[in-house]
């Protein structure tokens, strides 16, 4: 086998090929994206906040509504498409990324979104998730992580902390949980972010960057399940604790957190990773100019991965939030369409004529 020049397309935005509203059309509002279906999540569910944020954010894209498709799998969050006035499919458990791959690959003019949960994406659909990420199909995957199975009424999930007492694990769960961001980075995702259901501004900012990214944008959303796992994310939500709990990732900024930025990240030469230190000018503190500056665009994902490891695997007290990684790599769907265009450019005649030549080709003989 030899390497082939794939004629890589120039970097373009995630929605560049999706038709925009015609000029002069009145601007869309959240209402334009609200379907007539009654929303049926439990009172207090974090899904409401995300739905509102998405409905409020979609008008910002300025796209034709009919060119937006939401695909989901199975789980509480997967009811999402029913509530959006776009095209949508509520599919089967774990398979949304594969269905979205077919949609995105067959149609350049669609903005494709996947809504999934921790069970849907990381358990039954784990295989499809990692392959969507490595292929870098142009779509945005919103993973609502509530660290529990809600729709089946409260079993532990692949992101639940070890030892979790649930209906299926009365003596505590045994499995080590996935860190979704680490997993996505390991699968060579080109856009990896984490945000929180209740922080609408941050959530909207991340969605905006995700939509603009061409390729598979992976967004983990910490989402509270008030029924089966209430308070799982209190540490990052409570005004009292969140400054200490959230490690904010801002492109080009030193990674500092804690009250008055008293803590920060530096490279750890002992492990090759990163570590948390006290920042300041005292002798036992690290000087502010030594603090790691966040670079999501680094071609090497090592640092992003190291940062993702600062997320608590057990009960959550600390988590980096923001865009871990955003790099440009050709997308599967663009390349697939390019190959078709390339093949079509190399032939002449109508499809019918070519069909005739194809089926009548090879070694033929004529019976008169």
């Amino acid at each position: 086998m030899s390497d082939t020049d794939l004629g890589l397309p120039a970097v373009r935005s995630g929605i560049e090929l999706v038709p925009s509203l015609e000029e002069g059309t009145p601007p869309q509002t959240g209402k334009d994206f609200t379907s007539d279906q009654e929303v049926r999540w439990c009172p207090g569910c974090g899904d409401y906040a995300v739905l509102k944020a998405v409905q409020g954010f979609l008008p910002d894209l300025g796209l034709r509504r009919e060119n937006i498709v939401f695909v989901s799998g199975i789980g509480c969050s997967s009811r999402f498409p029913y509530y959006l006035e776009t095209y949508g499919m509520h599919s089967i458990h774990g398979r949304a990324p594969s269905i979205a791959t077919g949609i995105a690959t067959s149609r350049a003019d669609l903005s494709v979104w996947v809504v999934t949960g921790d069970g849907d994406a990381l358990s039954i659909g784990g295989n499809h998730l990692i392959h969507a990420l490595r292929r870098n199909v142009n779509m945005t995957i919103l993973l609502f992580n509530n660290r529990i199975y809600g729709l089946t009424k409260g079993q532990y999930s692949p992101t639940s902390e070890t030892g979790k007492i649930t209906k299926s694990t009365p003596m505590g769960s045994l499995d080590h949980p996935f860190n979704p961001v680490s997993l996505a980075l390991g699968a060579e995702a080109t856009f990896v972010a984490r945000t929180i259901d209740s922080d609408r501004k941050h959530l909207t900012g991340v969605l905006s960057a995700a939509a603009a990214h061409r390729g598979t944008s992976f967004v983990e959303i910490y989402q509270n399940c008030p029924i089966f796992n209430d308070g799982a994310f209190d540490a990052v939500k409570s005004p009292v604790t969140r400054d200490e709990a959230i490690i904010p990732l801002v492109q080009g900024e030193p990674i500092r957190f804690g009250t008055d930025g008293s803590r920060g990240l530096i490279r750890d030469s002992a492990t090759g990773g990163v570590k948390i230190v006290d920042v300041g000018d005292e002798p036992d503190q690290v000087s502010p100019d030594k603090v790691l500056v966040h670079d999501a665009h680094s071609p090497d994902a090592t640092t992003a991965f190291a940062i993702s490891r600062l997320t608590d695997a057990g009960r959550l007290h600390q988590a980096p939030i923001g865009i871990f990684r955003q790099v440009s790599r050709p997308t599967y769907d663009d390349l697939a369409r390019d190959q078709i265009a390339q093949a079509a450019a190399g032939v002449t005649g109508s499809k019918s004529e070519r069909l005739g030549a194809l089926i009548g080709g090879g070694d033929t003989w004529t019976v008169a």
Partner: protein
Amino acid sequence: MSKQVKRLDRVIIRFAGDSGDGMQLTGDRFTQESAAFGNDLSTLPNFPAEIRAPQGTLPGVSSFQVHFADHDILTPGDAPDVLVAMNPAALRANLGDLPKGATIVVDTHDFTARNLTKAGYADNPLEDESLSEYAVHALDLTGMTVEAVKEFGLSRKDAARAKNMFALGLLSWLYGRPTESTIAFLQRRFAKVPDIRDANVAAYRAGWNFGETTETFVVSYEVKPAPMPTGTYRNITGNLALSYGLIAGGVQSGLPIFLGSYPITPASDILHELSKHKSFGVTTFQAEDEIAGIGAAIGASFSGSLGITTTSGPGIALKSESIGLAVMTELPLLVIDVQRGGPSTGLPTKTEQADLLQAMFGRNGESPVPIVAPRSPGDCFDAALEAIRIAITYRTPVMLLSDGMLANGSEPWRVPELAELPEIDPAFATEPNQGDGDDAEFWPYLRDEQTLARPWAIPGTPGLEHRIGGLEKGDGHGNISYDPANHDFMVRTRAAKVERIAESLPPLEVDDPDGNAKVLVLGWGSTYGPIGAGVRRVRKAGYHVAQVHLRHLNPLPRDLGDILERYDKVLIPEMNLGQLALLIRARYLVDAVGYNHVRGLPLKAAELAEAIGNLVADAEGVEVDLSATTAHAITGGDER
């Protein structure tokens, strides 16, 4: 020396050797030569699942059987008239299939103590009396090949590899095959390696010349071209014909094709073939698994492509839930199952038709899926187009059941004129279909009254934004509904929609020449050839029997019930334990009898004739004697 030329009406040759000996290529070339000569033909490749099983062993034997004739034939033949065996294992593995008097051409080169032991021979069969009932030509094919190509300076190993072409040359002489196409083929195939190219051509010619000059062969044979309907012909395998049918379906419907597939024997060739034809707007997606393959195809169908997934039985098992999603969302989708021996991994390279009930019922809930089946390699083209017509017209997943025998077997195929191909209209929805003016809405489950098909509105169509999914739909508006009466109605409606397809089917062709038959043989899929050949034998012996072969397994044609009633006995031969028979007995309360073998090989015409004969004897109260019709070509019988 002038040699005698003897005329035969048909011959069955089996080329057998080690999997690395190039027997498939040899058989394929002989087939192409016969096709170009104008014989009717039918082929049966038979190879192990292992890519290279240990050399010289029985599991490593690969064979290719070709049946060619001066008349219309239906099967690759029950038993070879000629066996070409390239080593002891190939001889031992195939000897049991040979009738007495058959010809054996054997390469003696590998008949060493070591290779004889590997093949399980205690003594050299060429040196004892064990082959006395056959006409054996024991020749050092390898040695003669090495001698013939020595001028090209190849290593002995490379030189010996051309022995298959020596054998092909010899057999081509023996049966008067034209040589030009094979020489042209070798020149193309090895264009980049001139010494290998020249060696193969030289070996091929040397084989031919050896036949011409040696005294070993005193006669050569002639099989005249078969009369066939006028037209342009080519030799085609089922997988190739199926691939062309899919491309044709894309062209005829004006839809881009999206194939989502995961490699699996014996279906992978369809993925390979479609991957070559991107210029037709064909996207091929090699997915991470079977489920993703069909998932992506469903996504593409939702977006307005013709979604297709190809697999074999184990893959269907994995796709079942997704097929259910396509049933519920009522999207056009083609699911192609090239059946192989099962259960589980089963016999990956062997044929079987035991997935019929899986196709019918292998999903949760009441989940009706139309099923079509091709009857011969060339017929895979038409079957693909018919499956696409149904999928698009009725907005439904359609299962196409091919099998290993059809996939790899070949036959002459009359290339259809483009004007003969059906036009298929996707008829996308473009307007709201409920209410007027400002209140106008799009209801995705408002059905066409005649077909019961729902509208297909694809993303990008303004005003028709809608959501579909696996949850039960409310009639018409398509919103989630848990209403008991609605579910009952929707289950019945989905079943009725599939039943409606029968209204679009032509009447069944009943082959009952004089209308006097009391026995009907009913079949489906690749058993068409063997059943037809068996029926011919019975008729030739002077008895009556009728034949009907089903293209549509679901829904069954509306006239089938009446036809079944006209016969006293119904025989259903299948390469399973009676799956169609089960459906027919349940549906029509007919006491159908099965004839069943699951040997991984096609049914044999002679055995079928006997089974039919027994039923005829029963039904007509006569003695049935088929002995005059069961002999072999060389000794006089035929398959007419």
